[in-house]
């Protein structure tokens, strides 16, 4: 059963409060594979308690959310957690609708003066961009959290 998109900004454990506390080391800010999405690392914030089945710490676990329809096609979000804390959220699969893709394919793709081909290759503190259709994104994230057993 689907839950409301509001959960993305609201209650999911630590989700709206992904925090990186950097007392000493230089901060870094990288997204996972796929189109960049705002992320932070090593959350230390408190949140609702975990269910018994979820290990409080340990290896990172990743799940791919369901593919959801959005304006121009389909997207799926990949979520990584450690215990019940979300450490990474990124768009893993992005498919633009047929006509849009074809239109792009037929054009010579312009090169931008300062473009960085791999967002992961450079140190940045954050990414600014037009957002995905929030509902599709939120549903995909929620389904990934469900798979990981994170509330």
């Amino acid at each position: 059963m689907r839950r409301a998109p509001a959960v993305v900004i609201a209650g999911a454990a630590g989700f709206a409060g992904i925090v990186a506390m950097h007392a000493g080391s230089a901060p870094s800010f990288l997204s996972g594979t796929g189109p960049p999405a705002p992320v932070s690392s090593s959350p230390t914030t408190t949140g609702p308690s975990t269910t018994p089945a979820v290990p409080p710490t340990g290896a990172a676990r990743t799940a791919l959310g369901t593919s959801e329809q959005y304006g121009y096609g389909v997207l799926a979000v990949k979520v990584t957690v450690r215990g019940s804390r979300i450490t990474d959220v990124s768009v893993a699969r992005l498919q633009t609708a047929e006509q849009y893709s074809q239109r792009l394919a037929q054009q010579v793709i312009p090169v931008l003066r300062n473009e960085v081909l791999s967002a992961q290759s450079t140190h940045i503190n954050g990414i600014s961009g037009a957002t995905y259709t929030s509902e599709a994104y939120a549903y995909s994230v929620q389904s990934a959290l469900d798979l990981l057993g994170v509330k």
Partner: protein
Amino acid sequence: MGTVVSFHVEPGECPVADAQAAVASACARLHELDDIFSTWKPGSPINRFRAGRLRLDEAPPEMALVLELCEQARVLSQGWFDPWAMPGGFDPTGLVKGWAVEQALAILRLAGVDAAIVNGGGDIAVLGLPKDAHAWRIGVRHPWRPEALACVLETDRAVATSGCYERGPHLIHPRDGRMLFRTASATVVGSSLPLCDAMATALVVADDDGPEIARSLEGYEAYMIGVDGKENATEGIVFATAGVT
């Protein structure tokens, strides 16, 4: 509003526990604002207000505040940002997101946090500076290469980006209602994130008038990418030098 909000905090002199409490408080505030302004929540004040079923004096005080901000933004954008021109009625969503992120950051500032960056779906508010750096490095999403950045900007102020490249037609020309534009992406940098939000939207729908609108707003900088790849940046935009720090 269905937006993911992330916090990156450098407490500095502020005790870590205080900083964590401030983040929790900021999240709670974001929930409150979402309850008021989410157009997806059937009984939300914004939905009732736009349907004419809630008077401004009956609404939460934030409603009047946002209305005022929208009016200011409409004037400053020379009418290109017009939340009253939306098909379903008044819709301040484009500005509310940035305003909410800014509210969240204010809570961190009041708690004594030295430096922080709050990112709500690409709307970015900043406090202070990152450790050992003279500016925040903010990547701008590439409009047609999903893994790439259009550029990296250096800034100590808020950043917002608007564009048509992903949600399909959701930007609407305030005068003739058309929905496809020649600007793929517009990024605005300035001290007020809600105004950056509104201006970024305005620059996309303003098409060829975009650069002139961008230059007209003092204290705000803009970087625009046309669907043909042509780029346009106001004088105050600072591109980071290529490569890793």
